């Protein structure tokens, strides 16, 4: 029984949250990785793209809620995702036309695009706040829990509860479906293969009759979709606030790189590595050990490796260590 | 001069160099040939320090140099050129040459700022030398041109020129001839011969053009599948059945089709 309690506590405070957070990071990292692989630069504006897409979805959600349309136990925002994706797509495609395409045609080196994307980041930053303001926005509805801690305790009679939120489950499921779809798309469909070809060798793609502008457009569309899905799921689980989305950029980059930037599977793995290292390393094992060990050996202290102040630092240390041993990330080799 | 003993270099499970042993005599121009993927470039990379050997040893004048980084090998007099030209593209041809000599006192930051006088003297000498080399290579009209703007063959000449800025003991040339116009290649060949005869450089060169090899090299070493397949003079090699089968071939089969 105590052992069960120990593991339920661990699952409740480490495994479930880290899985959900990892999936959120992974969805973000997928977008970053795709741009890196196909458009060849690290997109600093990705966090703000997520914010913009989510904002569109939030506005649409409010509209739906006002019209009384809902999904029952599931959040209404799911219905609004297409609107968000459309909004994000319009924004990124317009940006591409006005800004990125110029540099592509000039054969600008990728690092110029990195700096350009910083400029875009500033602009998106202002745009999002201009429309919806800088505040926290609540747009979640539907059933909050798949199973709440209280219900779990009542159900099992254990001392420890296990809570699984609808949004958490949703995030994990969506992340897995998305990466599977993306994988299928890139490896099995003609368009997907043409994207990989473009990423591999731009000029030869041209010589094979692949229209590069079409590849770029499709990439941005997918990125807009990924960014919006990631942003909406994150916003449902936590809350929507433009500034937080900018802050998400760092762990997202870390996830993409630790997994092997340019590789979709790596993005997923990287997301989980970062999430588990943030949540796991700073976990105080006291409760777990108290259940796990005989009473006489129960710990006095918290049995915490590092205080949570350093959780972000820890994930970066892990990142550097991973890179020391696997210089191209967990999933090395081919990009995309 | 250089002795390679039972050298292995693996990539994952793949054995690019698989127990090669060979020797390069002082003062020789040794040719290294072999089918594509035989491991020639990999062998070069290991000898020149760009790759660590998986096992085996490389000796230079009896001293074990395996695993030393390239810049240390340079100071021991071992130079190499690259299969694909590695010029410093945003620097002028002159600068490309002037940067070569090691242990310039101006390369220390302290001297660079506080020892301007001594540096000026050194620089004058380097400049003179660089101009001589450019003359020798018949590209002195390009001395202020950015190296990135040179044509493929000129870049290869520049690579060769770098080896002349210092007193190299042994120079490794990786396919100087590939994609180079044959007339230019003859010039390069002349330059190599002169360096060998006048300055006593030892050369080891990878090449697929058997005419070029024939003009310059003795002996020739043939590699295949990471191992040494044969060794001898050009004529011996050309007559070797195994080499013909793996590498040289017997000429066009469709000769009768020529001319429609």
């Amino acid at each position, binding site marked *: 029984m105590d052992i069960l309690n120990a593991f339920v506590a661990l699952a409740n405070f480490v495994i479930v949250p880290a899985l959900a957070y990892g999936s959120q990071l992974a969805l973000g990292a997928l977008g970053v990785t795709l741009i890196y692989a196909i458009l060849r*630069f690290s997109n600093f504006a990705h966090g703000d793209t997520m914010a913009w897409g989510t904002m569109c979805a939030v506005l649409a959600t409010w509209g739906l809620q006002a019209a009384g349309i809902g999904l029952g136990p599931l959040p209404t925002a799911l219905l609004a995702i297409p609107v968000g994706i459309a909004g994000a797509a319009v924004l990124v495609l317009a940006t591409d036309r006005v800004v990125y395409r110029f540099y592509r045609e000039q054969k600008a080196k990728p690092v110029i695009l990195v700096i350009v994307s910083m400029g875009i980041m500033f602009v998106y930053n202002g745009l999002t706040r201009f429309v919806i303001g800088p505040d926290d926005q609540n747009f979640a509805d539907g059933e909050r829990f798949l199973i709440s801690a209280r219900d779990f305790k009542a159900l099992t009679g254990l001392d420890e509860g296990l809570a699984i939120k609808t949004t958490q489950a949703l995030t994990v499921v969506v992340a897995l479906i998305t990466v599977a779809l993306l994988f299928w798309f890139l490896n099995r469909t003609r368009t997907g*293969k043409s994207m990989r070809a473009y990423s591999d060798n731009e000029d030869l793609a041209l010589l094979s009759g692949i229209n590069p502008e079409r590849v770029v457009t499709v990439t941005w569309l997918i990125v807009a979709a990924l960014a919006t899905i990631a942003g909406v799921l994150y916003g449902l689980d936590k809350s929507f606030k433009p500034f937080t989305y900018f802050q998400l950029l760092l762990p997202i980059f870390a996830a993409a790189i630790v997994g092997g930037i340019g590789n979709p599977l790596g993005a997923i793995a990287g997301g989980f590595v970062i999430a588990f290292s943030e949540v796991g390393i700073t976990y105080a094992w006291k409760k777990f050990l108290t259940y796990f060990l005989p009473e006489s050996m129960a710990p006095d202290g918290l049995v915490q490796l590092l205080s949570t102040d350093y959780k972000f630092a820890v994930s970066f240390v892990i990142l550097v260590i991973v890179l020391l041993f696997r210089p191209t990330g967990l999933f090395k080799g081919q990009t995309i | 001069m250089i002795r390679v003993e039972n050298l292995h270099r693996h990539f994952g499970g793949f054995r690019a160099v698989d127990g090669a042993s060979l020797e390069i005599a002082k003062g020789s121009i040794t040719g290294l040939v072999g089918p594509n993927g035989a491991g020639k470039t990999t062998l070069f990379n290991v000898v020149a320090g760009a790759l660590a050997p998986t096992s085996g040893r490389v000796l230079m004048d009896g001293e074990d140099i395996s695993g030393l980084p390239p810049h240390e090998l340079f100071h021991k007099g071992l130079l190499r050129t690259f299969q694909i030209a590695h010029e410093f593209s945003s620097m002028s041809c002159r600068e490309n040459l002037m940067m070569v000599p090691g242990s310039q006192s101006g390369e220390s930051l302290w001297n660079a700022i506080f020892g301007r006088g001594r540096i000026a003297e050194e620089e004058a000498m380097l400049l003179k030398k660089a101009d001589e080399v450019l003359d020798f290579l018949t590209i002195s009209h390009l001395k202020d041109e950015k190296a990135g703007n040179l044509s493929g063959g000129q870049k290869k000449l520049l690579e060769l020129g770098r080896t002349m800025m210092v007193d190299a003991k042994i120079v490794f040339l990786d396919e100087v001839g590939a994609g180079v116009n044959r007339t230019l290649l003859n010039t390069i060949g002349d330059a190599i011969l002169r360096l060998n005869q006048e300055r006593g450089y030892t050369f080891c060169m990878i090449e697929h053009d058997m005419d070029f090899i024939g003009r310059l090299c003795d002996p020739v070493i043939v590699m295949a599948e990471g191992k040494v397949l044969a060794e001898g003079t050009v004529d011996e090699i050309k007559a070797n059945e195994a080499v013909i089968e793996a590498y040289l071939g017997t000429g066009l089969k469709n000769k009768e089709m020529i001319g429609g």
Partner: protein
Amino acid sequence: MSGETYGDRGNKDRSITNPAGMGDAWPVKPGGAAHAAPGGPFLIGEAMTGGYGKGADILHGCTIAVERGEIAVIVGPNGAGKSTAMKAVFGMLDLRSGSVRLDGEDITALSPQDRVRRGMGFVPQVRNIFPSMTVEENLEMGAFIRKDDFRDTMEQVYTLFPILRDKRRQAAGELSGGQRQQVAVGRALMTRPKVLMLDEPTAGVSPIVMDELFDRILEVARTGIPILMVEQNARQALEIADKGYVLVQGGNAFTGTGKDLLADPEVRRSFLGG
């Protein structure tokens, strides 16, 4: 140089940028249309002048052409603009003047993709495969524009280059130099081109593979596909050529049949190495 304008500063940091596979072609902007221009050779790039981006002109009124069923070979010193001329014919370069005509149509304004659709196949000098895709996917990409069933064409390519059949599941980047060249030629054949352009297909390959490639090229040419080819192994190439061009500094220096050029002492001394 044009590349310099937007150059990075030698940065190789893989967490920031991904230089792999970046192109350096300056393709004709899409949107142009072809128009009829009857007569003349099957494929001709006539009086072409142009360069990369905003850089200086590399080609100065250069003309190259190939007739049905022929092999035309271009030779010349390094940096003469041979590859540039090939790219110009394929529309990967903005021409400042001159025209490109294919099969009785003026295609100067067409984008490279559209030229592929009109039956042109091209194997560039460098970076002519998709390294991280398998051999089979490389071939599929060759057939990207085809809507019909291309399995029999793939079968033909495999028959032509049997080694590729064995390596079909392997990433093309893992092949040796000669095998890569075969993949590259195979990929171009997959479009079922009406004309094939090859840029130094034999550079850096061993003698045995070189002979093999020349054999295959002859075979392809004899099936009726005209071939336009740049070669530094000029003597072998000119031997099989119906027509030869010598390019110098972006312009035509000598033109003639392969045999003529081989026999010209001036050409031999200056360009073929004596």
